[in-house]
């Protein structure tokens, strides 16, 4: 009796393998057979408001171009789930996979396997290894972020006076790169402004608030606090508000509009800087479809993408353009 169940399970397994036929891979990478293209969009995590906004832009592009869009990803950031979803899509026979990669090296194997089946790979937001994709849709370069932050700060301060920076850690690679660009812009364009201190907050809002309070006490002539990691923006704003210096000491930083909406409306925070996340989704799908149709090729210098117009391509990076400045006037138009 026990043997019978063991055998039946083997039988079931044999049944799956027996009706094996070759994968229908002809649909992949073939856009000229009149079938609708299917584009699969992979977020780092599905529930994140940031990626939900990416999806919104992607849906708009998909509707414009008449392609089918699959949006699926792990519920929480989970590299194992990302791989499984990609492998499932390869089987399903999508034409393009556009991925925001949680694990740069880990997902490259699955993406390369997809490429071998003729599926085009585009990455966005976070790249994989360059050999595992055709293009990376880059939401912002370090130079773009650094310059926009410095220019906005200068505008808020009337191009003169003291300002301070709050960063996540003094060693984080991306933030070091941003700071370098901020300081370069400062030296080149704003001789009357002075960076008095740079403090780390370990990516914690509470610590950012404490650091900002210390800075406010130490530098009474301070005109502006620049927060370059997202928890530090509301942290610095809270410190300025509690010190009763709202509007006197300006606050700006890199973060999500949704996390800063109230401070911006109350006039504590003057500017929140980020790329237009919806446009990132839109551009990603535009690039994905163009790559599948062959109108976007390696070596191209620009890429014309629907309503966004011509986008610069650096090597294999499609650049979304300069970051966007969210202010009291426009912040209510953005939900992420």
């Amino acid at each position, binding site marked *: 009796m026990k043997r*019978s169940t063991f055998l039946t*399970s083997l039988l079931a397994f044999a049944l799956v393998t027996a009706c094996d036929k070759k994968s229908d891979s002809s649909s992949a990478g073939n856009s000229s057979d009149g079938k609708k293209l299917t584009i699969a969009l992979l977020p780092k995590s599905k529930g994140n408001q940031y990626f939900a906004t990416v999806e919104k832009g992607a849906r708009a592009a998909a509707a414009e171009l008449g392609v089918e869009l*699959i949006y699926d990803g792990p519920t929480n950031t989970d590299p194992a789930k990302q791989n499984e979803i990609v492998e499932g899509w390869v089987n399903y026979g999508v034409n393009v996979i556009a991925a925001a990669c949680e694990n740069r090296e*880990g997902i490259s194997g699955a993406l390369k396997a997809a490429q071998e089946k003729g599926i085009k790979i585009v990455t966005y937001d976070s790249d994989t290894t360059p050999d595992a994709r055709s293009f990376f849709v880059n939401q912002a370069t370090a130079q773009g972020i650094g310059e926009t932050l410095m220019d906005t700060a200068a505008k808020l301060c009337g191009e003169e006076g003291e300002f301070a920076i709050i960063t996540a850690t003094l060693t984080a690679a991306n933030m070091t790169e941003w700071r370098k660009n901020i300081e370069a812009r400062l030296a080149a364009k704003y001789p009357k402004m002075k960076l008095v201190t740079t403090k780390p907050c370990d990516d914690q809002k509470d610590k950012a608030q404490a650091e900002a309070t210390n800075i406010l006490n130490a530098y009474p002539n301070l005109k502006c606090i620049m927060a370059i990691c997202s928890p530090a923006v509301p942290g610095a704003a809270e410190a300025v508000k509690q010190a009763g210096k709202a509007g006197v000491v300006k606050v700006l930083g890199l973060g999500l509009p949704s996390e800063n909406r109230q401070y911006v409306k109350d006039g504590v925070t003057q500017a929140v800087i980020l790329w237009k996340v919806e446009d990132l989704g839109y551009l990603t799908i535009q690039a994905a479809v163009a790559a599948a149709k062959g109108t976007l090729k390696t070596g191209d210098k620009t890429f014309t993408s629907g309503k966004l117009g011509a986008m610069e391509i650096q090597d294999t990076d499609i650049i979304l353009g300069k970051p966007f400045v969210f202010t009291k006037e426009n912040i209510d138009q953005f939900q992420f």
Partner: protein
Amino acid sequence: MNTFLKRLLARPEAILFFVLVAEIVFFSVAGRNFNTSDNVANIVRHSAEIGMLALVMMPIILTGGIDLSVGSLLGLCAVIFGVFTHEWKMAMPLAAALTLGVGAMAGGVNAALITVLRLPPLIVTLGTFSLFRGLAEAITKGTMTYRDFSPEFIALGRERWMGLPLQGWLFILIAIGIAVLVHRTTFGRAFRAIGFSPEGSRYAGLPVQRRIAFTYVLAGIVAALAAIVFTARLRQARADAGTGYELQAITAVVLGGTSIFGGVGTVGGTLLGIASVAVLTTGLKLIPAIALAGIGSELGSLLTGALLILALAGGTLAKSLAVRRSRRQSHAAPKPTITT
């Protein structure tokens, strides 16, 4: 033939077998590229590690125990394997062997607490569930990820032999080993006896505690093996590897007809449990409407849960109906001596 069919249908696993066949037929018709060797390979790759954990969970549950720590142990072993290969620069086979040793030791910790101190398995493994994961996070400080494994090692996660992914062969070997152990050896038959009646087993002269200890050590070793397979498949070792796998393994075992109270269950049933969950979750993602809506994973867990509850409720209902019918029959028979 008629009695054979009846006997087959009377087994709880029989229903599951038909569920599995129904799934396969349904997804072959409604899904895209379901009946392809690539998809079979996908199913095997995505469920090999959980399947291995389920196979060693089965003897534990059969003895009336439970092991909640296998998923965390998978994460710990993955990290330790990464330390061996990357920081101590060990050769791959040595690192793998030592990792299996670590798995055995961790299983030994569970076994000692359960059999020497006589603490309840649920509490012990709930403790080591956090302990092992915490250790893995401490070693990596929560951020470190081991990458850049050698191509030969990564091949274990990707390559196929005779059409089946390598981890599939490993799974089959373990399945045969566990099936023989549980059903064909006197050593392994003790598991069922212990689960059925621990006291009775002791009076019958079975070394109850030693047999129970063995099941937890075995689970530790196989969890370490699953960690190595997981690392090869994802090309990285991180502290969060295998999160939630223990519950998926328990689901497969219980769905496969093993009683959570011990004493009842077959390895064949566990295999059916593993297969029906794996086919269901993979197949759903290949149905165009579900794929386009991007709800494959959510629907997968929803239907797995429904399947588990239906299978358990169905089994219990069938049993109580049978009891009632037999009671009615005995009531119908003339009973002259009823006076109360």
